[in-house]
């Protein structure tokens, strides 16, 4: 519907040019031309409300929903690749994701509601870079990388370097996020994962969330530990100090509790009307402990 035909609508975005792109080449060429004033839309679950409320006022909106090869899940020998425009619901329902990327599946079940997951995309969530969002947190825990394309080529960035602040990432204005790459361990690794989140209502952004992925060796000792906390800083935070203290040990509750103080050094939570910084600090420890215990228990099974 053209703006001029709109009668009394209550969604009133500022004027922008709309481009329904047919190829990645067209997207990157348009982004280049857009000079920072162009934005890519996929599922629109964050961007549409921002446009409607005029919190975002781009000159140009590039719709990538028609680019078929931007959707899909591909499990290779050493990595799983999820294309940016893959719906969250599709990823959640994928047997491959459930089998090989269990932490991602657990995280996505907390993303919004069934209805929003039918539209919302994996890449869109990463691009949006909300520090309380689940997919970025899980992907960070899983040591994922993203592929970014521009007119001058493609590069990969580790998620550890990708998130720069609330809704800010290393993606340049002229880049599109193409895909996310999850490294895969061997199938026989004893791995356990867990995702814990607290929000006032089901489907909300996390007030605090914790994601854990633990690998155990044949002796039951921790060969790899990953823990990240969301909602407690401008970006999702890996708690590397805690990970280091668990590595090589037999993880139990005492071990975890002894390592939990590392979280406090790694996060800088803020206050808002939903929870204080002090709440976020305390609950980060509570959820981290729960997630680690559950992940270890799963790995031990």
């Amino acid at each position, binding site marked *: 519907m053209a*703006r*001029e035909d*709109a*009668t*009394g*609508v*209550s*969604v*009133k*975005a*500022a*004027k922008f040019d709309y481009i329904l792109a047919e190829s990645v080449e067209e997207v990157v060429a348009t982004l280049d031309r857009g000079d920072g004033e162009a934005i890519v839309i996929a599922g629109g679950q964050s961007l549409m*409300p921002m446009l409607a*409320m*005029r919190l975002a006022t781009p000159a140009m909106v590039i719709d990538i929903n028609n680019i078929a090869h931007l959707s899909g899940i591909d499990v290779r020998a050493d990595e799983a690749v999820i294309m940016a425009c893959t719906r969250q619901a599709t990823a959640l329902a994928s047997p491959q994701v459930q089998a090989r990327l269990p932490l991602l599946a657990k995280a996505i079940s907390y993303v919004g509601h069934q209805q929003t997951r039918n539209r919302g995309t994996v890449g869109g969530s990463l691009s949006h870079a909300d520090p309380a969002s689940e997919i970025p947190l899980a992907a960070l825990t899983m040591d994922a990388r993203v592929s970014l394309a521009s007119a001058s080529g493609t590069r990969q960035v580790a998620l550890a370097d990708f998130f720069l602040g609330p809704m800010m990432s290393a993606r340049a204005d002229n880049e599109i996020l193409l895909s996310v790459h999850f490294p895969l361990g061997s199938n026989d690794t004893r791995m356990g994962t867990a995702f814990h989140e*607290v929000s*006032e*209502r*089901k*489907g*909300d*952004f996390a*007030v*605090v969330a914790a994601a854990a992925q633990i690998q155990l060796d044949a002796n039951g000792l921790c060969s790899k530990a990953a823990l990240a906390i969301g909602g407690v800083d401008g970006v999702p935070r890996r708690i590397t100090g805690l990970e280091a203290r668990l590595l090589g040990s037999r993880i139990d509750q005492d071990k975890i509790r002894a390592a939990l103080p590392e979280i406090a050094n790694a996060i800088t939570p803020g206050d*808002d*009307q*939903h*929870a*204080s910084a*002090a*709440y976020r600090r*305390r*609950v980060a420890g*509570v*959820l981290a402990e*729960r997630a680690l215990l559950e992940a270890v228990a799963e790995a031990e099974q």
Partner: protein
Amino acid sequence: MNQKTGDNLRYVAHKRRVREDRRFVTGKGKFVQDVALPETKHAAVLPSPYPRARILAIDTTAAEALEGVAMVLTGQQMAADCNPIRLGLKLPEVKWYPLAVEMARYAGEWVAIVVADNAYIAEDALELIQVDYEPLAPIIDPEQAFAETDLFVHPGHGSNVLYHGNFLWGDVDGDFATADDSLTFRARWGRSSTVPIETFGALARWDEGTEILDIWASIQMPNFVELLANTLGYPLNSIRLHQDVDVGGSYGVKRGIKQSVLVGYLSRKLRVPVRLIEDRLVNMAGGDAHGPDRIFDTDVAFNSDGIIKSLKIRALDDAGAYPGRAPFQLAKPISAIVGPYTINSVKYEAISVATNKTGQVPVRGFGQAPTNYMIEMAVDTVARHLNLDRLEIRRRNLIPSDAFPYQIPSGSNYDSGDYHTVLQKGLDLARYDELLQRRDRARAEGRLAGIGIATCLEPGGGNNIFEYLMDPTAEITTFMEACEVKVDPQGKITGMMGTTTSGQGHETLFATILGEELEFDPDLIRIVHADSLSALPTRSPVASRMAIMLGGAATGAAGKIKDRAMAIAAFNLDLPVEDLEYSGGTISDRNDPSRKLTWAEICFIAYRAYHKLPPGMEPGFHAQYVFQVPGGGQLPDAQNRVQIYPCFSFQAHVPYVEIDPGTGKVSVLDYAIAHDCGTVINPDIVRGMVIGGLAHGIGAALYEKFSYDGEGQFLSATFADYLMPSVHEIPDVKDVEHCTPSPLTSHGQKGSGEGGYLGAPAAIASAVNDALHPLGLSITELPMRMSEIEALINNGPG
């Protein structure tokens, strides 16, 4: 009134389909947005970013120059052409205009309005308006507002206090002196509201030919057209409110008076229809639709056996910047100020203050939900103090069933009730013994678990007399409702009501009662909404009153229709009326049923055969009835005792919750409610009210809050920050009805629209506090947010 109840009923109290459902479920409702008038222009409003600021200048030139913009109006220009909007209380120096004049008094207050060819252009133009503000320190805290001696929201008023009254009913000092013990507590009800999906919308068209201002608005409000006429300075009979639009949700908050004044004024000025539909941000911040925000300080006197003797209540309510009818929400609860308990005396200090926040409007229960929360807190607090079971203390204090009608200290006569039985039904439904075991098992496993108990009243029927309690110049002693019933030449029946409807199912209600009384299938009875120029007197669907009041009017009008039919039959059969029998519209001789007049014959005579009408009877076939509030009509006595509402419904709530001690998150896992609103006219409607109201109450108890920061900035303008519970947060509710008919109404019915909302917040608070009890903790502020509960449990800084 000759009351028909129980087994004699053929449509009333039977489970029958709600007639409104079909059009809403199939998307055939007609809302303000759906009214299509040629050449309609669209309005958008500019909110103040500051809670308190002097408006030094507004430059609208760039906005006016934008192509497609018809007009930009500022507060100063609007005020020059209208009167301030009349407030409930007479506060001449509290001037409320549709747009801020000289001073913005809350973040989100509208300072200018744009009219344009479409909503996009209107929004574009807003960005071009330059406002020069001088920000000032705001008044945010209600206690500070009350104590303030020189910082005023309305400087001309010379104080932030809008109302301060003291009431004393009975020998409070004596009761406190003779009671075994007393305690004091504070309870705080947070700023929440009803927040409908459908924001407020209004469409106006000035008809140059008839000189009538036509308005379509999603309104639910008594006196709306009067307020509109007064503000615009028009005669009342030059405004026509179309009441056949679907309002959407409301429960009190759809009072868009400033919205309607603006579109009315602009449509006349521009000679085109003008529509304003609030968007979510505008609605939440500047739609003036927030609810009560109240601090209670209560002293309770009681004996060691748990009998509560007396209450001293101080209620301080934050009405926001423009009070409207907000202060009256402190007065209506006087009708049930002791709840369902035999409390002997009450002192009540009611204070309403202005702050630099969004204005308060009536919300479901008109102040009764916060009051019920406080009363139930009092009962639970005494029980805890005495180490007495919360059920036992209620059983000792509930008014016994043989005591009705029961007069409370403030003068209300409770019409009927069977509180002990309803409570027991609620406990049975909850399987209370098993629930206790479940709670104790959970506790043994280290979880925090609690059962809530709340026994609350719902006054129904409405009666404006509370206004007189606050303002003795307001001698208003009726709050009537009327209807007209027409039988057409085909014999088909049409009922005409005088108000809009906002989801309460009035069409079903009205048709059911007409069908019952006239013995016709209600599904064949047409119900229409008269516009305000053709409507009979109405006070609108507020105050849990329509079952009582429209029900009474419908019964009265149906009686007149029947009387007329009987008179026609008596004349034509040459028999006295006493010998006639009415059955489904056919009137026959009791002694010789073959002698009869059919409904078709009666209708023919009424419309076509003047020579067969009894001498002096007007031709045609219709009746009007204006129903006065039962038991109302009196001013208070010298002790300020008065009957405010006529009917008192009762509810017993038994929820079960668990709290995650690590996060403070409350989960409502089970909920049983027993409900008594007398005769249920339509079971599905009442059940919907009970369960919907209960969900609304869970929202107020745990999630919903319009938050402001210390600088007066509004933090809850979207549904990401104003947290309404969804289906995930509401458990499967078990409900059971009990019927104690009201002796005052046509079929024994009482109010039910405020339903579960009036008790659920108290019940959830009771459950959460039961869960916290083993830790020796309690929480006394709503909403009980998880972060605050966690802080309490872990004794950390909030």
